[in-house]
């Protein structure tokens, strides 16, 4: 009896899936469109486009290439939960400043089409978070460690790279909840946040999950490149990693960062391997320490 019931539900899901196939077709077009407006023809661009093409021949909801709107919706939900744990620092000047730096850096990547949002939150922990769709959050504790605009750009670049490479979406894709939530998502998006809530798990726990080490190293490499492209001194991110590496390993403010990331020393060695002498010709990068916004408290 129970088996029969499950089969019925399964069939119902298939019918629903077909019912929303048309909607999804529109969403796909949007993905393809937004892909073609991306700035540079890099590898990730090609991959996403081919993913979109693949799913076009098989019209089922596929989180491998969610529409831009769906991606933003997921990121908004995660960020909203994170802000529930720690609100924004109440300093409009600071938040505007960070958004300007972040927006300029994001312009240098393949997802300049996203409506990027950046925020500094009230927490003395040292950490930074990225969520799908262009949401980037830095703690006040980490901001405190920064000395100039190039270092801020470096930290933001690392998080922007996670978004560009959909690293957190991929984590969600692996989770079991995904299969349950996926076909409902296409249908009820925007109407029922509970569906997305089911998808992302409890609160902002996805922010406490570790990515693959290789994803962190990749975000470091891309971060240095995005910082460089934006005209900043390329070593903004490595300098911050140096500073964090200097902070005592057992400081509670670093507990979560160290749990979810490779040690800063390992990240620096990996960066050094990748950079070699490639940055030797970049000589006009700016640190803009005179423009750097200092916290009021």
């Amino acid at each position, binding site marked *: 009896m129970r088996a029969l019931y499950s089969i019925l539900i399964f069939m119902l899901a298939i019918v629903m899936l077909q019912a929303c196939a048309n909607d999804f077709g529109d969403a796909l077009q949007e993905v393809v469109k937004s892909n073609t407006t991306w700035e540079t023809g890099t590898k990730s661009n090609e991959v996403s486009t081919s993913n979109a093409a693949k799913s076009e021949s098989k019209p089922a909801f596929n989180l491998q290439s969610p529409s831009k709107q769906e991606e933003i919706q997921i990121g908004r939900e995660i*960020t*909203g*939960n994170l*802000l*529930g*744990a720690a609100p*924004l620092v109440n300093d*409009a000047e600071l*938040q*505007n400043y960070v*958004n*300007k*730096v*972040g*927006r*300029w850096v*994001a312009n240098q990547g393949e997802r300049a089409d996203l409506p*990027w*949002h950046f*925020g500094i939150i009230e927490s*003395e*922990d040292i*950490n930074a978070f990225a969520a799908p769709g262009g949401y980037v959050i830095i703690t006040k504790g980490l901001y405190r460690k920064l000395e100039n605009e190039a270092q801020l750009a470096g930290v933001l670049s690392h998080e922007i790279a996670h978004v560009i490479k959909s690293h957190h979406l991929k984590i969600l894709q692996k989770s079991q909840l995904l299969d349950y939530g996926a076909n409902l998502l296409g249908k009820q998006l925007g109407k029922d946040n509970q569906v997305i809530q089911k998808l992302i798990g*409890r*609160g*902002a*726990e996805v922010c*406490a999950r570790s990515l693959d080490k290789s994803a962190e*190293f*990749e975000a470091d*490499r*891309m971060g*240095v*490149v995005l910082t*460089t*492209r*934006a*005209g900043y001194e390329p*070593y903004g991110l*490595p300098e911050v990693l*140096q*500073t964090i590496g*200097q902070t005592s390993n057992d*400081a*509670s*403010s670093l507990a*979560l960062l160290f749990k979810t990331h490779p040690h800063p*020393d390992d990240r620096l060695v990996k*960066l*050094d*391997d990748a*950079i*070699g*002498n490639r940055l*030797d010709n*970049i*000589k*006009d990068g*700016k640190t*803009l320490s005179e423009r750097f916004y200092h916290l009021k408290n």
Partner: protein
Amino acid sequence: MKIYKFLLLLVALLLPGVSIASEMGSALKADIIRAEPYSDAKKTGDFARGDKLEIISKKGAWLKVKTTKDSGWVRLLSVKRGASKGGNATSDILKLASGRAGTGQVVATTGVRGLNEEELKAAKYNATEVKKLESYTQTSMQGQQFAQSGGLKAVIFSYLPESQNKGEK
């Protein structure tokens, strides 16, 4: 007298460009010390992984360092700033100067909001804060204007492959 010395040190530390003067560091890997901050400059010495170094100044991607026997320029990424063992007077003073002393410890004891796993899991969606966050959003054009006002110019530079020219240095 002691205070006088301290203040003098503080002033020296806060002067731009001298701020990392006489900071200690340790080698993240074995590398070559060169006479000038260029990869084809003459070799003046070398060091092994874990060696202690004194960091004298910084220029772009290079640090001027002093070991027990040699001095010269080395790639920034070969060196970990800060002494790995023992006291680090310089960085402590820097922390004092910037009002950062003891931040890590304070967090644990005064109940300043942290962000541990449990707190993240228990977090509830905050719609007001999301709206606030989105109200600060800048357009691509605004970002560009901001860059221009700081004299930033976009540079064409390709992504870095995972690892390359390991043996070249």
